[in-house]
């Protein structure tokens, strides 16, 4: 009886009629984290590609940081998923016997493609020369690690380095559609569920993509400020302003798309309209209107918009950027929450609601979710110690070299 205690507690909280199998939410906070984390990866990578492919040289200080951030989060992206499975030890089946009509089946391949072909290769080519130099300079365990990372290569002739650069460039070009694929695909996992009117929209992959870019850019912005502060270095304001400008533009697109989705729902007013209307004005009111729309979207939009034509002092701007990037990250987290949790709160009979209660401990509790968000930051700290972007050879920073 003890294992069903939480379900019995939820029974009186059911409003209206729900199918009897719908009392418990099948996808919990770990599945909120999954699109959130993959979104951060895709967004951070796209910011990096702005510098590499679109030659926005002012973003140079964040280029390697963005790549390492993307890698740190990508390494963890699958963990909440596997953690959530009823049978985690069978997770590998999705790779060896993928059922190709399933939107979820390809995730393993998309993930591996992105990890192995895009991020790891790109970072490797970017750092190969430095790793070889560092391996000659360091001693002990660090030397061994560098030796392993360099995969036995020792050639740092200008010709070899030029090839590295060329390869990095090509991989980034492949990487941009891959990043779009990675996160658009995550949106499709939800968007293709025709049984759920809250998820089932053709805009879902696009909305996921743009919200991913927004969150990834905000994350790199925040991490750049924090890391520079820890290193007691001067923050490059031109770089920060440019990031803020891109954040502003993409936030406009993201907000437009999400508004379009809602306006369309209201206007066509399908069978599910009443229940969804009740959902967003009731159970999702705080997380949707207050957290996602006002705090996560409108305040950042208004502030960043103002900064486009009015520039206060550097110090003020830094504080603003710190607050805005945090707000955006907070807002996008609740955007994922509203999709994943919100989509399961109403019954597919459209006659009622169940409720969602999350505990602090347990594999699906707050604490576990928090841990899955902290681990990528720990990985990033390690990567920044091992592969510090600021210690890379000077000429790397020379805009003319690429």
């Amino acid at each position, binding site marked *: 009886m003890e294992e069903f205690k939480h379900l019995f507690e939820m029974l009186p909280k059911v409003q209206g009629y729900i199918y009897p199998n719908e009392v418990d939410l*099948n996808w919990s906070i770990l599945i909120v984290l999954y699109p959130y984390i993959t979104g951060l990866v895709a967004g951070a990578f796209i910011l990096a590609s702005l510098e590499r492919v679109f030659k926005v040289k002012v973003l140079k200080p964040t280029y390697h940081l963005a790549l390492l951030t993307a890698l740190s989060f990508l390494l963890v992206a699958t963990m909440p998923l596997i953690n959530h499975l009823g049978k985690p030890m069978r997770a590998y089946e999705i790779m060896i016997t*993928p*059922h190709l009509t*399933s*939107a979820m089946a390809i995730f393993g391949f998309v993930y591996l493609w992105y990890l192995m072909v895009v991020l790891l290769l790109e970072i490797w080519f970017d750092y190969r020369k430095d790793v070889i130099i560092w391996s000659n300079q360091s001693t002990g365990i660090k030397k061994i690690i560098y030796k392993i990372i360099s995969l036995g290569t020792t050639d740092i002739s200008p010709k070899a380095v030029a090839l590295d650069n060329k390869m990095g460039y090509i991989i980034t070009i492949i990487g941009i559609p891959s990043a779009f694929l990675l996160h658009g695909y995550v949106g499709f996992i939800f968007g293709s569920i025709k*049984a759920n009117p809250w998820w089932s929209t053709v805009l879902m992959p696009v909305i996921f993509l743009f919200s991913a870019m927004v969150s990834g850019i905000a994350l790199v912005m925040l991490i750049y400020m924090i890391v520079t502060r820890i290193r007691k270095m001067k923050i490059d304001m031109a770089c920060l302003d440019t990031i803020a400008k891109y954040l502003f533009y993409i936030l406009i697109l993201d907000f437009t798309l999400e508004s379009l989705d809602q306006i369309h729902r209201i206007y066509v007013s399908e069978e599910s309209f009443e229940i969804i209307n009740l959902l967003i004005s009731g159970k999702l009111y705080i997380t949707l209107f207050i957290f996602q729309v006002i705090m996560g979207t409108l305040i950042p939009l208004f502030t960043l918009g103002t900064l486009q034509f009015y520039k206060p002092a550097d110090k003020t701007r830094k504080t603003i950027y710190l607050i805005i990037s945090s707000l955006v990250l907070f807002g996008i987290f609740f955007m994922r929450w509203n999709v994943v949790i919100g989509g399961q709160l109403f019954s597919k009979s459209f006659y009622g609601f169940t409720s969602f209660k999350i505990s602090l401990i347990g594999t699906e509790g707050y604490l576990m979710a928090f841990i899955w968000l902290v681990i990528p930051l720990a990985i990033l700290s390690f990567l920044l110690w091992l592969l510090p972007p600021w210690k890379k050879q000077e000429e790397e920073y020379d805009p003319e070299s690429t």
Partner: protein
Amino acid sequence: MKLINKNANRRSFLKAGLFLAGGAAATTLLKPYNAIAVVPEEPKGEKPWYGIGIDIDKCIGCGSCAKSCKIENDVPMEPFFFRSWVEQYTILNDGSVKVESPNGGLDGFTQSVPDKDVFKSFFVPKMCNHCSKSPCTQVCPVGATFESPEGVVLIDEKYCIGCRYCIQACPYGCRYLHPKKKVADKCTLCYHRIKKGMQPACFANCPTGARIFGDLHDKKSELVRFLKDHTCMVLKPHMNTGAKLFYNSLSAEVR
């Protein structure tokens, strides 16, 4: 003495070996992908293609179907796990709709709306629709959910990874995660019974004959006759799931 070209022999042995190994590897590699090639189709001819008929006019809401299902299939008794349940619909005089299913109707029903306010009331037994284009089968990432040659949607519980995507994809709320087995669970149409020529438990235990099980290919079957004699409808037809559960007297309020 005849010269034997040992090399040639070795070469042909290697060739044959490689050929066999390659063939085996290719088969192994391609096997998982046959899901795309062999999407189950309605068999032509004599083979059975099972469907379900439910006559709402005959259902008295006794809950025998739901109860017998739980007993027959070892479904957890807690009121959160149902392969088969009954809903009570009450349309009030003011046009509002009240739906109830306390404990899935296992213990029968009482009418909570005062008689004077009731416009009409009826019971709707629910169970898996055994869709021929089932969304749950479509979304299973490992192919653990499949359709049997007779059109019964089943789960290989030794293969299911418990991702619950199928539960999200079912428009009818017919699936749940088994709390002990930690895999998805659903109505099997009592596959173990029908393969022996018996009726599924919920059909065998319906006291009013409101549930009709049969072969849609057999034009003489009770089910085909039922479909011919009544105007039947499936739930959520706009979902295009190819549902094979047909209701007589299905009211527009039922979802």
